[in-house]
């Protein structure tokens, strides 16, 4: 009897418990499942094409297949392998591909019967890729619940490994491009420094001369007073606001300070537009400001807006 998949209250492979003869199958399945946990370690630093080939190898070894097919599609191209190897795909595989539906992670039906072949089909989509895996086997009862379960796990492992491999490739390429660009910029800056050395030396001499004149008690030039810091030092203690705000006013001011419009503030806080406008008018009056930007500056100064939350 074939079901649509494991029920929530049954452990994996429970569908195979129909008879005592299924217990060895269950034990084998458990051992296979444990072994599958090692797959990610085996596929580290492997090229996507190698992972796809390996996926077929694992399925053949685990399920004793007659033929198998795997395809991973992504915008950059497709990886496709089949066994038995040959110039053309096995006929049953071709027919099964023609019958395959769109991507789904939990297909209600994942078997196809074609010309006497029982073919298990796994279709999985992830990000902007998707994969199709077909497995044909002459064993009676194929595919059982345990077969499908094991296939799903292996395919998921391979999909994750291929996605990781592609990401690493992309990062490696980006890093190499960035390093090349950095070399160009470094060379340019070195040349610029060489070109500016003489003029800068002259400017430095003139600045020294000006400072000497300014420090003279009778000098006409006085150094300007140091400008106050425009940005509070990180982790500076919060200042207490100079006016008392109600919790609602502080809440409205916080959201205003983070760039929300009046209508958005009303929507988030479940208030009417008019109520929000009234709060904001009251805030402007309390804070002694006239514009949203001034209210925002107040909110940031007194810690009513967390700059790290943007």
């Amino acid at each position, binding site marked *: 009897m074939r079901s649509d998949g494991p*029920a*929530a*209250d*049954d*452990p*994996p492979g429970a569908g195979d418990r129909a008879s005592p003869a299924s217990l060895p199958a269950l034990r084998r399945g458990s051992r296979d*499942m444990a072994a599958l946990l090692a797959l990610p370690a085996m596929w580290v630093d492997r090229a996507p094409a190698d992972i796809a080939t390996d996926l077929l190898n694992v399925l053949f070894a685990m399920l004793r297949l007659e033929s198998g097919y795997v395809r991973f599609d992504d915008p950059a191209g497709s990886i496709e392998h089949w066994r038995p190897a040959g110039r053309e795909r096995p006929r049953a595989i071709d027919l099964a591909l023609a019958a395959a539906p769109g*991507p*789904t*992670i*939990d297909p*209600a039906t994942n078997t196809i019967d074609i010309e006497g072949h029982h073919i298990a089909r796994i279709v*999985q*989509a*992830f*990000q*902007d*890729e*998707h994969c199709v895996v077909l497995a044909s086997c002459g064993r009676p009862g194929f595919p059982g619940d345990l077969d499908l*379960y094991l296939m*799903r*796990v292996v395919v*998921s492992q391979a*999909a*994750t490994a291929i*996605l*990781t491999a592609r990401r690493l490739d992309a990062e490696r390429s980006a890093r190499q491009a960035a390093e090349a660009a950095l070399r160009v910029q470094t060379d340019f800056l070195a040349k610029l420094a060489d070109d500016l050395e003489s003029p800068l030396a002259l400017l430095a001499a003139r600045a020294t001369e000006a400072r000497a004149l300014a420090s003279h008690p009778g000098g006409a030039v006085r150094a300007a007073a140091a400008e106050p810091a425009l940005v509070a030092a990180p982790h500076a203690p919060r200042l207490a606001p100079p006016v008392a705000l109600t919790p609602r006013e502080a809440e409205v001011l*916080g*959201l205003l300070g*983070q*760039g*929300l*419009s009046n*209508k*958005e503030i*009303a*929507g*988030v806080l479940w208030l009417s537009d008019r109520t929000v406008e009234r709060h904001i008018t009251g805030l402007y009056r309390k804070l002694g400001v006239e514009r949203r930007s001034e209210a925002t500056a107040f909110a940031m100064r007194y810690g009513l807006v*967390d700059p*790290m*939350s*943007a």
Partner: protein
Amino acid sequence: MTVMDKPACRPVSFAGGVLDRYRHVCAFVNGREEEDALLEPFVREGFASGDTMLYVVDPRNRATVVSRLRHAGFDMPRLLARRQCEVRTWHETYLREGFFDRDRTLDLLDEVFGVSPLPRVRLIADMGWAAEAKIRDALLEYEAYANAVQPKYEHVAICVYDTARFGADVLIDVLRTHPVALIGGVLQVNPFFMPLPEYLAELASRDRQPIDA
């Protein structure tokens, strides 16, 4: 029929896959950029289909969610006014009155999902509150019990876990409580999922320890 055998309902796209019968998902993400890239198509499809997006976020990020959606091109004042988008904070949901209570939160989930089958609700919950509150076992029990609540409805629940904030041991347990998981960018039916009775029995056999966030 078990709760997981509920007939398939209107499918929902998520992370390149399709959520059909299983609509309680744990999504492991690594940082804000990955989270945004993951959720944007899901949110876009939700708004286009007339579904309601319900965010549960860190109170510090409430405005950030709205700003990001606005920058993505959504008319946030209109969506918020129509209640097609709601942004609630941890303090209004998981941590009401300042602490987490499993039963109270499950009742709230039942209440939110049970208001009406339409419009469908797409819940996106930032689960970072549990890393901060260090309440591992209560979180896991809640997630396990949520699998009994959520399947009663067509609504979708995406529990977002930032992998940088939780230890691997907690994430493995989280994995056991969700029938569908997004790991490493791949959405998959979770082969490690443990049904509720089995999982509760395992939890009961462990010593209760706080998590290290």
